[in-house]
């Protein structure tokens, strides 16, 4: 009998749908059906039991090929790379659980590494704004139950967060919003006429790169001051109309995406959006939320904040105190400036996401990829360590885009012998401690990792 597993969390995006139903074959080895998920979430589950999964760590050979090695050998290699580097960088964590993130932090602290997550190239600018200006927010259920005005700014959930609008914002009927879509006003602010803009009552086609100016106009108008006849390509009358809608809302939420936090000015666009949200709370209730990308990219920000007080870009190289300053300790900056001498890519694909110059610099030094799948990073690595897929093969806690923790389940076992990120990092930590003890016993003779370097 195939087994139906209910209330399964989806390891795709920050919406963290936790209502999936997964049907697994009799022998527990094959995923037969995934219900309720969007097309992308569906694919992640089916991919897990497809052909071609990597089941053993692979070490680069002198001829450029990969050779399978044991987990013990891979752990030893990784520990020695971390141990010998002056400033190793451990980056990624978009797709793993919080248990793995906590274990990785233990390794980074022991090894004296820089620890960073994908927010560094994504919503890191939101963190900068939060540091400077706070974050008046709410959980997604609040928006569902109360909101009568929804703003999507520089976000296109129709494509990036497929079930966001139906679960939380535009369409659901909540406690005080029994009429669902009919009771809500939808405003989309985006230079493009996106599929999300299609469902908007008002679409403000802001001139690309002028979001800050438009926010300034909103704030200025909200305080009753004159504004120019046109700002950021939007006519004064339209700005005043939207300001009135915002002030008269019962409960509003601004959802913003990379279109805001990565257009010119980055963190400042988010910062002034926060200021506008504050201002509106003098009249009524407004909240703001970042449309976080991966299902658990909010996780490392939570875990490392309680462990060190910083959500990303943690320089732990001093081993006794943590330092954070994005612009200096952020992965791409470190790579572009050639500040690090070893790289671990975990649960993301820096090979695909980083600028080519950054990748070239990183490639001068040992590069290890920890990922269930073959990706660009794994193919240019010196060592690729496969791990179980969180949310499919490994359970654990993840944080939704609104910082709500969701407990994920596993639906099948990982391929035989494949371990979790958490176990892998715990083993690297143990090996690091042994190396330290060996050094203390032997003096400073270093144990160099054995293996060939991938071609640059």
């Amino acid at each position, binding site marked *: 009998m195939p087994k139906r597993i209910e209330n399964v969390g989806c390891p795709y995006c920050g919406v963290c749908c936790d209502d999936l139903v997964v049907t697994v074959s009799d022998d527990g080895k094959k995923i037969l059906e995934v219900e309720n998920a969007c097309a992308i979430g569906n694919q992640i589950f089916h991919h897990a039991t497809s052909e071609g999964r990597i089941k053993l760590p692979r070490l680069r050979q002198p001829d450029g090929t990969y050779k399978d090695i044991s987990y013990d050998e891979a752990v030893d290699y990784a520990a020695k790379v971390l141990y010998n*580097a*002056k*400033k190793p960088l451990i980056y990624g964590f978009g797709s793993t659980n919080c248990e793995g993130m906590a274990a990785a932090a233990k390794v980074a602290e022991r*090894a*004296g590494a820089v620890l960073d997550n994908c927010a560094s190239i994504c919503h890191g600018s939101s963190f*900068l704004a939060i*540091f*400077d*200006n706070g974050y008046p927010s709410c959980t997604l259920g609040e928006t569902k139950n109360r909101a009568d005005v929804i703003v999507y700014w520089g976000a296109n959930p129709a494509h990036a967060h497929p079930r966001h609008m139906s679960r939380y914002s535009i369409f659901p009927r909540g406690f005080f919003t029994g009429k669902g879509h009919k009771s809500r006003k939808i405003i989309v602010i985006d230079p493009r006429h996106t599929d999300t803009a299609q469902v908007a009552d008002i679409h403000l086609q802001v001139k690309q790169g*002028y979001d*800050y*100016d438009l*926010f*300034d*106009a*909103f*704030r*200025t108008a*909200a*305080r009753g*001051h*004159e*504004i*120019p006849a046109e*700002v950021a390509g939007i006519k004064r009358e339209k700005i005043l109309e939207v300001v009135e809608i915002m002030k008269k809302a019962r409960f509003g939420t601004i959802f913003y995406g990379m279109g805001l936090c990565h257009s*010119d*000015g980055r963190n*400042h666009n988010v*910062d*002034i959006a926060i*200021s506008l949200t504050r*201002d509106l709370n003098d009249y009524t209730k407004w909240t703001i939320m970042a449309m976080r990308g991966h299902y658990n990219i909010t996780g490392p920000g939570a875990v490392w904040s309680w462990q060190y007080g910083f959500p990303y870009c943690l320089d732990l*190289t*001093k*081993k006794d105190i943590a330092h*954070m*300053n*994005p*612009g*200096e300790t952020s992965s791409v900056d470190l790579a572009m*400036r*050639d*500040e*690090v*001498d070893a790289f671990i890519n975990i649960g993301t694909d820096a090979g695909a996401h980083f600028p080519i110059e950054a990748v070239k610099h990183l490639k001068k030094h040992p590069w290890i990829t920890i990922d269930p799948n073959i990706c660009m990073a794994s193919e240019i690595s010196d060592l690729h360590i496969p791990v179980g897929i969180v949310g499919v093969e490994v359970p654990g806690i993840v944080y939704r885009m609104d910082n709500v923790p969701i407990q994920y389940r596993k639906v099948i076992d990982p391929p035989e012998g494949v371990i979790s990120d958490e176990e892998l990092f715990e083993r690297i930590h143990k090996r690091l401690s042994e190396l330290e003890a060996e050094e203390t016993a032997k003096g400073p003779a270093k144990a160099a990792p054995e293996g060939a370097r991938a071609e640059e």
Partner: protein
Amino acid sequence: MKTVTLTLTNPSELFIEGQNITPDNFAGRKAAEIAALDVWEGKQKSPLGKYFTVEGDGGATAEETKIVLRGDCTRVKRIGQQMTAGEIVIEGNADMYIGGWMKGGKIHVKGNVDSFCGIGMEGGELVVDGNAAHHLGSSPRGEWRGMQGGVIRVAGNAGNDTATFINGGTIVIGGDADIHISTHGEGGTVIVKGNAKGRVGGQMVKGDIYVYGTIENPLPGFSMVDEVEQEVDGETARFAHYIGDLGERHPTSKGKTVYANLYTKL
């Protein structure tokens, strides 16, 4: 005043963090003791003397100590961080955080500096003959008490985010400035003698900004009120006077609302 000369003779593979390179730390120390001070290259802590040759002893106090850095310090961070007195001359370029959290004394960089120089500055003087990158005289992440005092002079251009959360002191940029000047400012003065790209004075509560050239994209929250003649940095000129950011909160003083002032040269 005694002079300690550091010459970078054995450059690092990565970057050096040299927060110990200050007159405060060098004062009262002989050359050999200075060479034994810690600097960091990643997780590796080493004596300063591993990278630099050290000539001359420190003075009795920070005030009586001058440090001259020679060789290419492009990859040396944090020189003069938290210094309270004395003098530092960097003959060429230097990296980040030069004069960060500086309280007094003078730093003169003859080349360019990278980002975060003069951040959290409370007093003293930082002079850069070349360009400065981003976050010049800005506030550290999350800190609402930005630059409190002192003077920063950059002869060349500055990057973005100059003077964020500035509370006091003066920054003079001889060339152009990129986006975001005095964002969230609550005091102090920024003078840009070239052009400014945009977002000048956004979310600003109080303080003054002068732009001699053009502002490519002025903010809608600034409104022109009059024309004034003022003496700025030793020369008198006429300026158009704007107040703002009208979208931001503003305090009242003696019954009158206090705004930030933006002056553009006529």
